[in-house]
């Protein structure tokens, strides 16, 4: 849901979002630059490409309708919240500049709705669930709830952003937007769980889990039964 320029008509709203997003991302960059090892820079770059390419994997839902992964929560689970924030910002910015997908004035809004909602809030939920339920089950359940929440929260934020102008006539469309995203969030949750399950099997170390027996190779064969 890349918001184009003009959907949020009031400049005060998108300017404020630009400032909030820029501040958060600047913090993330300052914080991570210090700890970043040289070889982790290509890692984050390739992860940005992964999120971009992962959005090409479409799920046929019904005739003519298909959905795809957003990936903010998945990125946060795999890279940590701040690195995922940087990666999602890069993805969303390039999508804006290269594909004109999402507006430029609205860049801050998109970074908040599609990035921060998942990489920070979704991630907190994911960590919370993992703190209660240990092991694989915690990773999968936390991933599912976090991914679903990140999508619904993203839609909720768009609704709030539209509603900030104070027009009562905007309430109904904003509500509809959130309701539509409740099932879309389930799609995100399902894809995220599927992805985490593969990573748990192939590289559990990346999710902070101990390897279970021998490390198996991941192949396309097991990805597409």
């Amino acid at each position, binding site marked *: 849901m890349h918001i*184009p320029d003009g959907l949020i008509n009031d400049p005060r709203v998108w300017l404020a979002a630009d400032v909030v997003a820029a501040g958060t991302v600047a913090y993330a960059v300052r914080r991570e630059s210090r700890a970043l090892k040289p*070889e982790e820079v290509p890692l984050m770059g390739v992860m940005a490409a*992964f999120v971009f390419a992962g959005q090409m*994997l479409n799920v*046929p839902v019904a005739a003519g309708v298909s959905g795809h*992964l957003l990936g903010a929560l*998945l990125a946060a689970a795999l890279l940590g919240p701040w690195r995922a924030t940087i990666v999602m910002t890069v993805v969303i910015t390039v999508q804006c*500049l290269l594909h004109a997908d999402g507006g430029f004035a609205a860049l801050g809004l998109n970074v908040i709705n599609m990035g921060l909602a998942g990489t920070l809030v979704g991630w907190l939920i994911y960590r919370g669930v993992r703190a209660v339920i240990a092991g694989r089950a915690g990773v999968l359940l936390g991933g599912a709830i976090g991914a679903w929440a990140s999508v619904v929260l993203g839609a909720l934020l768009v609704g709030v952003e539209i509603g900030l102008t104070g027009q009562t*006539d*905007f309430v109904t469309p904003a509500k509809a937007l959130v309701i539509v995203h409740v099932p879309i969030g389930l799609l995100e949750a399902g894809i995220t769980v599927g992805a985490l399950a593969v990573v748990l099997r192939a590289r559990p170390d990346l999710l902070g889990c101990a390897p279970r027996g021998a490390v198996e190779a991941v192949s396309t064969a097991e990805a597409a039964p």
Partner: protein
Amino acid sequence: MSPCDHPEQATRRALARRVDPRVAVVCVLAFVTVQAATPIEEWPRFVAYAGLLLIAVIASRVSLVWLLKRLALALPFVIAVAMSTLLVRPSADSAVRLPGTDLMVSGPLLILLASVAAKATLSIVALSLPVALWDFPVLVRALQALRIPRLFVMLIAFMWRYVYVLGDEARRMVQARDARSPRGRLVRRVLVVGSMAGSLFVRGYERAERVGQAMVARGYDGRLRLLVPLRRFRAADAAAVLVVAGALCAMRLA
């Protein structure tokens, strides 16, 4: 599905390519921001913006079909707002008559519809011009010269390089799945795409480890050094800045 759809070669000979890419990027971003900040009620300004943009489009020799395809990205939003305008019952003080009909609709929603249609169109067309005119590596250099944080420049460069590689892998996975005709319940289909994403991640991660090794093998120490061919500003660059800045100022003050 291509990560960077490139328009035909016509733009190679375009007048607009005489402008320095850095200047072009700054002009486009300034234009997009200024028009987005203009209240939609002041509609004559948007006629002027569109005129300015039209000149840039002609000078860039971009094909209309290519622009229309990109404009389709905003279509779902325009349709959604249009449907809301038609379906939402307006409150008593905000109802206006839809021009040419007897239908009473919400004034604020009608204004929102005009806003998203006009601003998204201007924004998408303007943002498309630099991409149509220059190859991506040139634009990355322009961003670097504009003092975007180094980490971002590096990540954008890596992402662009590996989006093709991972995109090819993703495409092959989708083909392999579709070749085995994915019948089955929705839950199953969703989980299959999930495991494809997981495989893509693991392969990407392991590729990144090898890329890191290849970089270290050639003396990489964490700083990306690029030769930026910084061209001197020329008359065309100054002219572009003056025209865009002057036009934007005039439109805001008028």
